[in-house]
């Protein structure tokens, strides 16, 4: 489904602080499965996840989605692809302060032009599904870490994307909350979604969730 061929990402190329975050990664991610990117901090997990999801463009190499090269797509098309194909769960939740939980969840659907009532209804249903139905009107800064991550998952699902990219989804949570979040992700897999999880949390790998592990170190995939 998603194929990376010799993909590399270099930050500040040609400068003193040039940094190769990802080097010559070739990888296939199969539809409907859970793939985990594992490695210590600075191994390139987040950058690789960003490359897969079209948040950033590769410096070298090719990315293919369903066989179609998306590495050089114009920004407009890449954005539309990102919106329709990928749901992101970020490490720091990346919710927008002072907006309600409901408003945050609805945000990715705003540019789609779907009827407001439909978006709102779906957002409320998703919040119910992740156990936040009663917190819909609360401002996000009032949420606990576990609630914020569940809100982020609901937001990732608002456009019903086939692929969920989760960056350290349990990083700021205790074991009990981490298990809750992983249960939700497992449910997404059962619904047939493709999951790519970047994590170095052992709990993620202990649970019967991950089907394939890709180990990374210094931006390279370990054999």
């Amino acid at each position: 489904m998603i194929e990376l061929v010799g993909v590399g990402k270099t930050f500040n190329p040609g400068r003193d602080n040039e940094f190769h975050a990802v080097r010559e990664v070739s990888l296939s991610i199969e539809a409907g499965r859970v793939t985990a990117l594992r490695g210590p901090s600075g191994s390139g997990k987040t950058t690789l996840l960003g490359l897969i999801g079209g948040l950033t463009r590769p410096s070298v190499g090719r990315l293919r989605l369903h066989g179609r090269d998306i590495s050089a797509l114009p920004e407009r098309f890449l954005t539309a692809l990102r919106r329709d194909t990928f749901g992101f769960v970020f490490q720091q939740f990346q919710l927008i302060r002072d907006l309600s939980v409901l408003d945050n969840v609805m945000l990715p659907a705003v540019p789609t032009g779907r009827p407001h009532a439909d978006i709102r209804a779906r957002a409320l249903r998703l919040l119910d599904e992740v156990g936040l139905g009663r917190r819909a009107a609360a401002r996000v800064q009032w949420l606990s870490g576990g609630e914020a991550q569940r809100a982020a998952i609901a937001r990732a699902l608002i456009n019903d994307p086939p692929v969920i990219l989760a960056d350290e989804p349990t990083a700021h949570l205790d074991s009990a909350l981490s298990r809750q979040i992983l249960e939700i992700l497992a449910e997404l897999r059962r619904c047939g979604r493709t999951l790519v999880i970047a994590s170095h949390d052992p709990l993620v790998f202990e649970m019967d969730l991950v089907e394939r592990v890709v180990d990374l170190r210094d931006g390279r995939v370990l054999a």
Partner: protein
Amino acid sequence: MNTWIERQRGLIDTTVANLRRRKARNLGLLLAYVLLVFLLASVVLFGDGMRREARLLLEEAPELVVQRLTAGRHDLMPAQWLERIADLRGVAAVEGRLWGYHHDAAVGANLTLQVPREAAPAAGRVHLGATLARLRGLAPGDVLSLRDHAGQPHAFVVEALLDSRSELVSADLVLLGEADFRAFFGIAAGLYTDAALRVVNPLETRTVAEKVLARLPATRVISREEMRRTYDAVFNWRQGLPLMVLSVLLAAFALLAWDKASGLSAEERREIGILKALGWDSGDVLAMKLWEGALLSLLAFLLGYTLAWLHVYYAGAPLFEPVLKGWSVLYPHFALAPEVDISRIVSLALLTVLPYVAATLVPVWRAATLDPDEVMRE
């Protein structure tokens, strides 16, 4: 089309939610903006109102006024000249007018004494402008005492006060009979201050003026159109002073808007990064920021314009009255007739809304084209 409308609705909803989030900052900006629009609109509305009043008054004025010149100065006109003008083809009627100025030491102002065309007061009686009556504390039945050209006191009984609706031109006016006028100024019979002409065909006014000048070269001919232009010029000049100051304020405000939009905080940049990561393209971010600017500036315009309208038409524009009406001892009290001029509203809106939106456009475009990954890593 429906998708586009729903998308814009979603963007507006998000924009409104965003504006509510930063209440203090946006409220401060809104207040500054409202104040600026209010000041600008007050000056423009007041100037427009004054010009409109002047035009309405000039509708009753003669098409041409002929004044005799001696050594380039206005001089009294003999009655025979009126007959020579009346002979000219195209002249419908000629009338000798009697008017003059008198310095009233009691109020320290120049009064205009005039003999009206119709319904002149009886001998020893006058009609007074409302402003002068107010300043002198006179009411009908009281006596107005003035010293004539020879320094002798003349006592006139105030018969009536002039309609306060005409206060713009009647503030300093004293209407009196012809005999009293001639006696007061020492003007012999057969001499007039100037001549008022009515022409047969208003389209031929210019031609008639040329004929008058040809027949009586020692005259000055003033058309109603020239008087209207003079009024316009006076009010334009007066209006220009505050407008110049306000345009500097407007430029400063545009700079403030630019600064606000370009000096995006780390938090705002991060939020734009999040939106882009979630599937908003640069156009969506730009549209949201433009909606933000448009909503803020339109709200400020509506509030500022409405306040200015009330300030000018109901409160008498106390902030700008001295500048726009002119400095005067005899200060007229009059209310401008309320009017809603759509073209003026549109031009004011463009003048105030466009600079704000334009000033925010480039910085917002820069922010909207940020790479989401890069911003979220900051």
